C-alpha cells in the first residue's frame, strides 16, 4: 500500500490556498461584525465583586509566606469560614445561578449572539467546502495514520485502497479552523483572536464559573501550610551586608 500518488500542483493553487484565504477573510469579517454588534454590558456588581474576591484570594495564596502567621490565619478564616466567608457558596445559590442564566433575557440574548456569530460562518463555510471541494484527494499528511481515521478524513474519496495519509479538503478545513488562531492574533491584535476552540469550550461550561472557581479557591486556601519566610530574611540580610561591608 505504499504507492506514492503524485498530486497535481493545481490542487495546491486552487484548493489549499483559496480555502485558507477564504477562512482568513471570513474571520476578519466576523471580527468586525462582532465589534459592531457588541452591546455594552453594564458590569454586574455581584460578578465584579466575585472577580475581585478571587483576585484577592489568589494574592493571599501567592504571598502567604510573607505575612505573619496570625494575619494569614485571620485572612484565611475571613475567606473560608462556613458562615459568612467570602468564598463560601451555599448550595442553593449554586443551583440558582444556572436557572438565572436562562431566565435573564440580556444574558440569553448575549449568548445567542455569540453563538450565532460563530456557528453560522462555520456552517456556511463547511457546506461550501463540501460542495465544491469534495471527491478528490487534496493533500498528503506527512505522518502515517491508522485506518480508523479514514471515514473522517477521506469523506469524498470512495476508494478504500488509498492510503489514509491522503486526505480530502474537509480535513484541510478543520486544520485551518484550529490553526488560524495564531494568525488572527497577529493580524487583529492580542485580545481579538477569533478563538473558536476556546469559544466552543466556553459554550459547554455555561458560566457556572463563578461558584466553581470560588469553591476551587476556597479549597486551595484551606490546604496551604503557612511557612513564614521572614526569619530566613534575617540570615540573608546578614550575609548580604557582610559582603557589602567587606
Amino acid at each position, binding site marked *: 500500500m505504499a504507492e506514492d500518488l503524485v498530486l497535481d500542483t493545481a490542487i495546491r493553487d486552487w484548493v489549499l490556498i483559496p480555502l485558507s484565504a477564504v477562512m482568513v477573510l471570513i474571520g476578519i469579517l466576523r471580527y468586525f461584525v462582532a465589534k459592531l454588534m457588541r452591546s455594552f454590558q*453594564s458590569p454586574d456588581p455581584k460578578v465584579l465583586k466575585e472577580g475581585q474576591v478571587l483576585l484577592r484570594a489568589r*494574592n*493571599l495564596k501567592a504571598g502567604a509566606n510573607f505575612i505573619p502567621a496570625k494575619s494569614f490565619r485571620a485572612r484565611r478564616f475571613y475567606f473560608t469560614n462556613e458562615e459568612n466567608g467570602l468564598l463560601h457558596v451555599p448550595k442553593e445559590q449554586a443551583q440558582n445561578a444556572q436557572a438565572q442564566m436562562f431566565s435573564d433575557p440580556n444574558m440569553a440574548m448575549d449568548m445567542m449572539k455569540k453563538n450565532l456569530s460563530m456557528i453560522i460562518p462555520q456552517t456556511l463555510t463547511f457546506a461550501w467546502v463540501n460542495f465544491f471541494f469534495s471527491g478528490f484527494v487534496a493533500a498528503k499528511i506527512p505522518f502515517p495514520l491508522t485506518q480508523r481515521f479514514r471515514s473522517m478524513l477521506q469523506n469524498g474519496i470512495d476508494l478504500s485502497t488509498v492510503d489514509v495519509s491522503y486526505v480530502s479538503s474537509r480535513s484541510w478545513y478543520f486544520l485551518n479552523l484550529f490553526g488560524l488562531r495564531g494568525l488572527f492574533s497577529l493580524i487583529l491584535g492580542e485580545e481579538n483572536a477569533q478563538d473558536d476552540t476556546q469559544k466552543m469550550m466556553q459554550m459547554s461550561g455555561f458560566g457556572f464559573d463563578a461558584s466553581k472557581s470560588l469553591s476551587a479557591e476556597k479549597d486551595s486556601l484551606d490546604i496551604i501550610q503557612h511557612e513564614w519566610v521572614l526569619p530566613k530574611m534575617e540570615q540573608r*540580610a*546578614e550575609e548580604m551586608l557582610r559582603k557589602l561591608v567587606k
Partner: protein
Amino acid sequence: MAGAAEEAQLNRLESQVDSGGGGAWEYLCLVRKLKARRSEKVLKHGLSILNDAKDRSKLGGEEWTLYEQVAIAAMDCQRLDVAKDCIATLSKKFTGSLRVGRLEAMLLEAKGAWADAEKAYACLLEDNPLDQLIHKRKVAMAKAQGNISAAVDFLNKYLEIFMADHDAWRELAEIYVSLQMYKQAAFCYEELILSQPTVPFYHLAYAEVLYSMGGLENLQAAKKYYCATVNLTGGKNTRALYGVCLCSVAINQLIKGRNKEEKESSELQSLAAEALLQDYKHRAPGKLPLLTTMLKNMKLIS
C-alpha cells in the same frame, strides 16, 4: 508606577520638547500611559498643540483624549478658564457622556464648590454605580475638605467591592498612619505585601508601622521586615539599615532582664552599623562624626 527605564525616557522626551525639538505628542502619550503627574508641562505643550489648528487636525480622533488630558492638567494648575474651555468643547461633541460629566464635576471640585460637586458625583453614581474613578474622586474630595473620617469611610466601602485595587489600599494605609491607627495601617500594608511581595517599599512601611506599635513581638517582626527590605534593595536603603540598628537596640533593651536564650545574631546589628558608616563615608562625610557618636552610644560599634 513607572519603571526606571520609562521614567528616563519620559525625562528625555521632556527635555527634548522643552528645548524646542518636536515630539510633544509622544511626550503627552507617554505621560498618559504612565499616569505621571507633570501638569505644567502637559498644560504648556498640550495647549500649544490644541491652539494650532493644523496640529489639531493631524491628531484626528485622538484630539478629544488630548482635550481631556489638558483639562485635567489645567485644573491641577488652577487655570480654570482653560479647563472650562476644554470641557465645553468636549461636552459639545459628546453630550451626556460619563467621562465629560466626570470632568465637569472635577471642575466644580477645583473651584471649591464642594456641595455642587458632591451633587454632581451623586448624580453620576446613580447611573453608573460601579465606576471606580468617581468613587476615588469622592474620597479625594473628602480628604481635601479635611474630613478624614469620611474619606476613610468612603475608602472602606470602595474596598469592599474593589478589593484588589492596591492603589486604594496604599492610600488607606497612609491615611491610617496619619491618624495613628497603626493596627489598621498594618493590615493595609499586609494586603499590599501580599499583592506585590517584591516591592521593598511596602516591607519598609510595614516594618515602620510595626516599630511604631512597639512591643517585643512587633519589634522582632519589624526587624525581620527591615531585613527583607535590605535584601530587596541590596543593602542600599539607608532607612532600612537604620531600622535594623534601632530595632536591635530596642529588642535588647526589652529582653535585658530575661536570660538571653534568644541571643540574636549580634553580627547583624554590627554589620548594619558598618554598612551605614560606609554609606555615610561615601555620600555625606560631613555627618560621619554624628553617626559614629550615635552608634557608639547604641553600643553597635566599639
